[in-house]
């Protein structure tokens, strides 16, 4: 098992995709911070010059948004950026990480060289979790760096600076919510022997399930009893608690019906197990002919 994991990591670090994704999250963090600062500053300047009318509530909200750039807000704002983009990127990566083995026919090659099916799945899962961890750490560090850099350029006070413990806690909880989506993408890729199908299914569930759940609960709060067993509501419950009322779901009018965070964590964990077990069940029962 460990030999297979070593081989897996050897191949992983030599692939372009994971490095490109890490580069992308770093660049995105800086660009996002810069764009927020640039657009808010431009709006404030335009209001000041009279080019555009001042908002009825004054410029306080714009100023407040500008303060999100400060290092002491990284736990809410910076990690939110990493979580928003990261979840999509990691779903794509998870499906690709497994699905390409079938497309390239290398799954068959690995088995022919003595790898076990369970070992293959464990190595894939562990390497995915490790990569997600690295991705979150790099993305969060990039967000911290961007926050300091843009704050310095904008002349925004660093305040109390970054609360590293809080940032780590928020990032860890956000990262945890990615795992069931990654496991789902992995399972679909195994079942369909296709990276594309894994990506499509993962993204559809990620976006559509949350939307449908929100609509249903908006229509009738009793629907929360049902949709709170889905992925998105439990993920929201965790991310909401990590960022408090100012977090990414603070605009959600159905937030009061979100499940308990502890229960949410357990449900997401159970989903991970279910998806991995389903993937294994399919993998072990399948005859591996050409391709995989």
């Amino acid at each position, binding site marked *: 098992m460990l*030999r*297979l994991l*070593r*081989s897996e990591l*050897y*191949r992983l670090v*030599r*692939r*372009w995709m994971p490095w490109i994704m890490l580069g992308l999250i770093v660049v995105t963090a800086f660009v996002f911070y810069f764009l927020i600062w640039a657009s808010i500053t431009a709006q404030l300047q335009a209001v000041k010059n009279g080019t555009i009318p001042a908002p009825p509530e004054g410029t306080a909200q714009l100023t407040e948004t500008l303060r999100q750039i400060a290092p002491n807000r990284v736990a809410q704002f910076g990690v939110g950026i990493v979580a928003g983009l990261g979840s999509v990127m990691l779903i794509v990566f998870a499906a690709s990480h497994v699905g390409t083995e079938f497309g*390239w*026919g*290398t799954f*068959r*090659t*690995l*088995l*022919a*060289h*003595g*790898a*076990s099916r369970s070992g293959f799945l464990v190595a894939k899962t562990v390497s995915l979790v490790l990569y997600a961890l690295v991705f979150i750490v790099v993305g969060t560090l990039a967000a911290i760096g961007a926050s300091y850099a843009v704050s310095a350029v904008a002349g925004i006070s660093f305040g109390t600076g970054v609360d590293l413990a809080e940032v780590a806690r928020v990032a860890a909880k956000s990262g945890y919510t990615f795992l069931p989506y990654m496991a789902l993408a992995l399972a679909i890729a195994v079942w369909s022997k296709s990276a594309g199908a894994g990506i499509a299914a993962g993204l559809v569930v990620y976006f559509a399930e949350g939307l449908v759940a929100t609509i249903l609960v908006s229509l009738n709060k009793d629907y929360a009893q049902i949709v709170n067993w889905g992925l998105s509501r439990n993920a929201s419950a965790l991310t909401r608690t990590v960022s408090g009322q100012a977090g990414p779901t603070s605009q959600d009018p159905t937030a009061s019906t979100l499940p308990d965070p502890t229960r949410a964590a357990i449900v997401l964990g159970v989903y991970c197990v279910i998806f991995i077990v389903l993937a294994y069940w399919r993998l072990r029962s399948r*005859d*591996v*002919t*050409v*391709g995989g």
Partner: protein
Amino acid sequence: MNPTQPVMLRSYARRVTEDQVLRTKGLVKKFGSITAVDGLDLEVRRGEVVGLLGPNGAGKSTTIGMVLGLISPTGGTAEVLGRDVRVRREDALAGVGAMLEVTSFYPYLSGRDNLAAVALLRGGGALARVDPLLARLGLAQRGGSKFRTYSLGMRQRLGIASTLLADPALVILDEPANGLDPAGQREIRELIRELAGENRGVLLASHLLYEVEHVCDRVLVIKKGKLIASGTIAEVTRGGGNYFEIVIDDKRRAAEVLRGLGIKEIREMPTGLDVVADPTHGAEINRALASAGLYASAIVPRASSLEDVFMELTEPEAPSAPPAS
């Protein structure tokens, strides 16, 4: 010839010793209503090269898949180095190097990195064998190039190199000469003999009958998943395979005359008859035909090649017709 029965007796001794690196017994694989492999028994010993022959769809790759645990048998057993593949697959395959019909590696990795990735999976001293094997297979110069830039022949060489990383007791090669030029094919033939010389057993599935004839100690011919012939090359080709090709018009009468001489194996061909007989009997055959007023345009002594026998054994069965009156 009844294609459902093995036609050759096995002179090969059926000793069960530690030399045996592969043995299948009653191996069966059904895909729905289709029986791809039907009760196949085969064995490979250290130091010998066994050819697995059969037309497309005969079940060669399915058999190899079952030996490697890629495909679950419907019935029977496959033992590698005395270990049942279904029960102790990883232990069994630790001593096996296998190259599948379609050579697949990671396109973004170099040839060297692909071998290293397999070597890490294999463990032991496999990593140290990467560069020597690249050199042995003539890939040392291109070891750093991405696999996706490799020609078909280079891919095959890399596949063969990967089989040797684990210093295996059993090497399984499925169409290893695919895509190789004649010089490359010759190199592979020599390499296969070297492998046997290193006391490894080699199972070679190939469509290239010339390759099999010149490399294998024994051959197994399968058709529709069933073993229809097995033995040494000489046995399968009828001990050198002597027969006469007789070009003659009246095939029916000629066949009657030859049966009168005690000749049993007579095959009707488009231009005459093929007659299995000792090469010294040519004059006798000629005399008997002439005495009966039958004059052959030619009586040519021939030796069966493996290809002749293969074609004969695996030719599609003709639809049954009513007996001639």
